[in-house]
C-alpha cells in the first residue's frame, strides 16, 4: 500500500503486497461461454484482508471473473475456464479439489439478493448446518445471531427470525444474504454488486459492514458505482471488454490512472 508509483505491468510482476499476503491469485484466466470468449488472460492478485473492487462497463466480465474464484461457473454448461487460479497457493481447478469445500471457504453474495424461501433463521443456519460447524442448537443460535449482527440486520429481525426471508425488503434481503455467507466463516467473500438493489441508507450500512469485515476476511466486490469503489476499496481492478485494463491502489486509480480507458470510465466519458 505504501509504494504506489510503479507502473501497472511492473506491479503485476512485483506485487507491492508481500507474497504471503496474497490470498488468491488468477494467472492467465480465460473464460469462454460456448464460442464467445468473455475473459482474456486476466492476471490478478487478491491481497488478504483487503477490499478489492472490480469495476468496468456492463458486460466486461466482472461477474465472470468473480464466479471463477469459487467455481460457480461450473454450473453453467457452456462455460469453460482456462488458466490458473490459486487459493492460498493451491490450484482450485485441480480435479482433486473438493468443490464443496472450496465454496465453503470462498463465499459469495450474488448480484440479486436470493434468500431461500425459508425462515430468516433457516437461511442463516443452513450453511453451518450442512457443514456441521456446530454441535448443538445453542451453538447454532449463537452463530446465527452473530452473523446477523455482523450483517447489521440483527436489530431489525431479531423478533421475527421465524418469518420468511423472502418477506424482507430488498436491502434487508441483501444483508441477509451477506449474513448467510459469513455464517460459514469463509476466508474470502465475493460480492457481486451487493448494493445494486439498495436505497442510499441500506447502501451506507452495507459499506460500513464491508469496512468492518475487512479486519477478518478477504473481500472482492463488483460495483457499477465509482463512488462506491472509491469509498470502500483499498485496491481496484478495471475491466473492459474481457480484459483487465489496469489494477492498483484505489487512491491512485481514481486520481491518477495509467490507462486512458480507466480515466474515461471514471470521469463518465462512457458507461
Amino acid at each position, binding site marked *: 500500500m505504501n509504494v504506489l508509483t510503479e507502473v501497472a505491468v511492473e506491479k503485476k510482476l512485483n506485487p507491492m503486497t508481500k507474497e504471503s499476503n496474497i490470498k488468491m491469485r488468477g494467472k492467465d484466466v480465460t473464460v469462454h461461454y460456448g464460442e464467445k470468449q468473455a475473459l482474456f488472460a486476466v492476471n490478478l492478485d487478491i491481497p488478504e484482508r483487503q477490499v478489492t473492487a472490480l469495476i468496468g462497463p456492463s458486460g466486461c466480465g466482472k461477474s465472470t471473473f468473480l464466479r471463477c474464484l469459487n467455481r460457480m461457473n461450473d454450473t453453467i454448461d457452456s462455460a469453460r475456464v482456462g488458466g490458473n487460479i490459486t487459493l492460498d497457493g493451491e490450484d482450485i481447478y485441480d480435479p482433486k479439489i473438493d468443490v464443496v*469445500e472450496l465454496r465453503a471457504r470462498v463465499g459469495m453474495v*450474488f448480484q440479486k439478493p*436470493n434468500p431461500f424461501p425459508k425462515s430468516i433463521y433457516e437461511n442463516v443456519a*443452513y*450453511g453451518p448446518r450442512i457443514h456441521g460447524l456446530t454441535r448443538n442448537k445453542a451453538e447454532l443460535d449463537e452463530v446465527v445471531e452473530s452473523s446477523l449482527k455482523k450483517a447489521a440486520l440483527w436489530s431489525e429481525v431479531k423478533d421475527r427470525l421465524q418469518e420468511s426471508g423472502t*418477506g424482507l425488503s430488498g436491502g434487508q434481503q441483501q444483508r441477509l444474504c451477506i449474513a448467510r455467507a459469513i455464517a460459514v466463516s469463509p476466508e474470502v467473500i465475493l460480492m457481486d454488486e451487493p448494493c445494486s438493489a439498495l436505497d442510499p441508507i441500506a447502501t451506507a450500512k452495507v459499506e460500513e459492514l464491508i469496512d468492518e469485515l475487512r479486519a477478518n476476511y478477504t473481500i472482492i466486490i463488483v460495483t457499477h458505482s465509482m463512488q462506491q469503489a472509491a469509498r470502500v476499496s483499498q485496491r481496484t481492478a478495471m475491466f473492459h471488454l474481457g480484459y483487465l485494463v489496469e489494477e492498483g491502489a484505489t487512491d491512485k486509480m481514481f486520481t491518477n490512472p495509467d490507462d486512458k480507458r480507466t480515466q474515461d470510465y471514471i470521469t463518465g466519458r462512457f458507461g
Partner: protein
Amino acid sequence: MTAVTFPAVVINWGSDEMAARRKRRYAADRRLQIYGMIAIAFALGFLAILIGTLTFTGYRAFTQSVVTFELDLSKAEIDRSDVMGADWRGIVRGALREKVPELPRSSERAYFAMFTSSAQFLVRDQVIRNPALLDGVARFSVPLSDPLDQLAKGQVDRDTPESQRRVTDRQIEFYEQLSAAGAISKPFNWGLFFNSDSRFPELAGLAGAISGSFWALLVCFLISFPIGIAAAIYLEEFAPKNRFTDLIEININNLAAVPSVVFGLLGLAVFLGWFGLPRSVPLVGGMVLALMTLPTIIIVTRASLTSVPSSIREAALGIGASKTEAIFHHILPLSMPTIMTGTIIGLAQALGETAPLLLIGMNAFITSPPAGVLEASTALPTQIYIWADSPERGFVARTSAAILVLLGFLILMNAIAIFLRQRFERRW
C-alpha cells in the same frame, strides 16, 4: 447521420376518421372477449350437463327401499354352537309371512320374491356379528328386491300391462299393504359404499371397487411418484445434454400418447407372463397404471425443476452445498407444488382408466373387498363397466351413482393434493 433531417409528421388523432377507426378496433376487442366467454361457458356448461345427467339418473341409487320386521330369535331354537347352520330361510320367511296375515300359498312365491333373495344371509350375518340378538326380539331390515325397489322409487308405471313390467299386480297389492303398515322405508343406501359387488342390484355396492382402486392407486403412486421424480431429476440435473437425452425426452413424451390398452398388453405380457403374478390383483393393476402415469409425472417434474430460478441453486451452491444437497434441500421442495399438480393429473387419469385393467382381468366378479394388493379385485372404472353391462334395471342408477362416487374419489384426491400443495407453497 446528422445529415438526415427529420420532418415532423403531424397526425390528427382526434379526426372523425381516426375516431371511427378506433371504434371498430374496440368492437373487435369486445368480440374476442365474448368468444372467450362463450368458450368457457361451453366447457363449463358441458361439465354441468354431464354432472347433472349423472346426478339425475344416479341419485336414486343413494337410497334403498328396505322392509323392516321384528324377529324373536329366542323362540327360534337356534343351536348357539352352529348359528351358521340354523334354518335361516325358514326363520326369516316366517317373520316376513307375519307381515301379511293369511298369505295364500299360491301367492307365496310372488310375495317372497319382493325381498332380496339373500335376506336370510343378511339376517344370519348380522346375528353372527352380534350374538346378543339371539336373546330376544330384534328389528331387522332387508332390502326389497330390485323390481320392488324400482316400484318404491316410482320407476314403475302401474298403468302398463302386467306382462310388461317386472312387478305383478299381486306384488303391488302386497307392497301397498306393507307400506300402509309402515314396514317400508327408504333410508340412505350405505350398502352402496360398504357392500361388495353382487349379482343383485339391491345388494351391490362399491366397497370392493373402492378398495381395489385405492390399492391400485397406492401401488401406482408408490411406484410412479418416487421413480418419476428420480428419473426427472436425473434427466434434468445430471444427465448430459445430448442427442441421446433428446431421444429419451421425445420417447417419454411419446409414451404419454401410447394408447392405454397397449400398456395393458405390456402388463399382460410382462407382469402376468414373465413374472407370473396373479391375474386381477391390484398390484398388477397398479404397476400397469404406474407405467402410464410415469411419463406425465416425469414431464411435469422436469418442467417444474427448470422453473425454479437458478438463483436458488446458486445460493445453495455458493454456500458450499453439494449438487444433491441443493436439489433435495431447495429445488425439490420448491417444485413440489407443480409436481403434485402433475401427480394429481396423472393419478386422476389412472383412476379413470379402464382399458388396461380389462386386459389384466380387473373386471372380474368378486364379492369381497381385497384385503391387500395380492387379492383379486375390481376397480371403480371396471366396476362401472361391468354394471353398465348388467341387464337389471337397478344397475342403471347404480352405474351413474358409481360414476359420481368415482368423481367424488377424484375430487377428494384433488382436495388432499391441493391442501398439501398449499402447505408446500411458499411466497417468494
